[in-house]
């Protein structure tokens, strides 16, 4: 296993229930690509007015929003609270986060489908207890720069004061991110078992296969 670590500024999003509509509004889901969503991340909070995919002239930024402030603008570690990514199944939310340049999302908890989508795209999600999260949020909001070191292969995060926070993550998730695995290829290794299962089901539940 190769080692992988992420070093960078925290972007504190101090709220619960950050939903997928907030992460990427629907008008941008009309794209049939996986890239180019970065400029629309947190669109309704980031800009004073909306745009569409084909009309995106320079828009006025909402300077109160954290992502429009320094040093957060260049951050790559997003930190938020509970139920992050709730709402729709749109994988565009994960693509937008990655397209923007964010490598890691740290929160108290994540919504199920969002977690799956992140896993599939190699976006690292880390859950920490709410006290630790509150501490990171507070410190990063009150200091001009707040940089974390996320050491994935060692399951720990290094805070600016050199304190360490351990986290737990499944081996498969870790392996996937580090080795950039192709899920479909892995599943297709079991092709014969899938076929066997199907053959069995054709006898037990024939209506699902040959409904004649």
């Amino acid at each position, binding site marked *: 296993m190769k080692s992988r670590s992420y070093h960078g500024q925290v972007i504190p999003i101090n*709220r619960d229930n950050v939903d997928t509509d907030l992460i990427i509004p629907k008008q941008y*889901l009309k794209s049939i690509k996986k890239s180019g969503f970065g400029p629309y991340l947190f669109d309704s909070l980031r800009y004073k007015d909306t745009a569409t995919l084909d009309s995106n002239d320079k828009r006025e930024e909402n300077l109160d929003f954290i992502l429009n402030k320094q040093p957060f603008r260049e951050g790559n570690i997003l930190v938020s609270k509970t139920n992050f990514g709730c709402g729709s*199944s749109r994988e565009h939310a994960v693509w937008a986060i990655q397209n923007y340049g964010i490598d890691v999302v740290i929160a108290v908890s994540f919504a199920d489908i969002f977690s799956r989508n992140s896993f599939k795209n190699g976006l690292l999600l880390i859950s920490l207890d709410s006290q630790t999260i509150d501490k990171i949020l507070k410190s990063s909001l009150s200091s001009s720069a707040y940089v974390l070191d996320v050491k994935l292969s060692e399951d720990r995060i290094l805070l600016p004061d050199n304190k360490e926070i351990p986290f737990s993550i499944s081996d*498969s998730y870790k392996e996937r991110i580090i080795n950039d695995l192709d899920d479909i290829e892995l*599943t297709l290794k079991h092709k014969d078992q899938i076929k066997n299962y199907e053959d069995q089901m054709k006898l037990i539940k024939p*209506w699902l296969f040959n409904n004649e």
Partner: protein
Amino acid sequence: MKETLYDKIWNDHYILDNDDKSSLIYIDRHLIHEVTSPQAFDGLDIKKREIWNKKSIMATTDHNVPTINRDQGIADPVSKIQIEALRDNCKKHNIELYDLDNLKQGIVHVIGPELGMTQPGMTIVCGDSHTSTHGALASLSFGIGTSDVEHVLATQCLNLTKEKNFNIEINGKLHPYITSKDLILYIIGSIGTSGGTGYTIEYTGTTISDLSIESRMTICNMTIEAGAKSGLMAFDEKTHGYLKDREFLPSTKHYDKALQYWETLKSDDDVEFDRKDIFDAGDIQPQVTWGTSPEMVASVDECIPSSESINNEEEYLDTLSYMGLKPKTEIKSIELDKVFIGSCTNSRIEDLRQAAEVVEGEKVSKQIKQAIIVPGSGLVKAQAEKEGLDKVFMNAGFEWRDPGCSMCLGMNDDFLQPYERCASTSNRNFQGRQGDKGRTHLVSPGMAAVAAIKGHFYNVKDFMNEK
């Protein structure tokens, strides 16, 4: 060992265990639409992979389609590209597509059950979180992202980790004009939007057995808003009655065998769930959400709760400022700009009948800028027209549209302008969901209809008594 319904369907689709905690699970039915599939087909093409079982797939255009003037085609060039991508992909791979010119087109979660593509005991996936809807027919159904769509196209399987079992038992009788929408909003208000995270929820109890299948679908539909990917309900006589004569059901040759299997689709008596909550349906009044998360909900006769009810004061104030409301405001005093009756939560024939009963002989308030009814499918629309419901709505001043997701997510031309306030029968009141800076209040079809007539919220029960 005793099993829950979820355990049974899981075991019936289990192929093998992976090295991590996940298992390879077979998928029987795959529903696709224009928004979450193009990148998946693209992925297949790039790797030169074949589709495993085309016959398991059904496609429709719904999220991004016009609900008016369809004969003029799709005006928005970006939307058009997306819809054409689905058309091309279906054509290329020989996949059944219910397109705009087809009477059977509609919202994917409405037409699946309606056509009998949704069958008990199936595993059903779709690149849309409200796939949970289909659980009302005792099928294990859940939303997936685009990478998973690609995975199912290529392998007919998913690597899944088994969820825990959560039983929500609801007993007692719902008051007249109180619907399953009120019930599920009430439950979400109680367990919270992450209350079901990590669980599959099975709904049981006398209230559920008394409900029609369409009403049950509304509950399973909004299960995702409680944080659970799937909601389930046991197969019973009502399920059987609903399924009869649907187009894609098992043929006569296989029907008895299928029925025999379906009849096993319930949790074993006295099986232990990991979590169990019990509700009394008699406690429930018409519900209205007042915030930007479905758990921010109150009864229509109440006021917006004070900040103590929410654990995060800042979020509470942000929410109210977004919604343009003050703490302690009476729900009934909230005035509306628009009314939307539709979405996969509440656009079936029973929903339209409920709304029509309220609307009959009334007029939409002058204060309401627009009130639209968007049937869930072409077949629902046709049935409603047969019953004369379209006339009831149009005479009152509602617009009668063609089927699609419409203002539920406002990807097409139906959306809220900034700061407009809408009574909506859909399922999400997130910031910007129905349009940038738009304000959404989730309600039942009857409550939305009353709001259209009064111009503000009003208890549908009282309205009908006074009528």
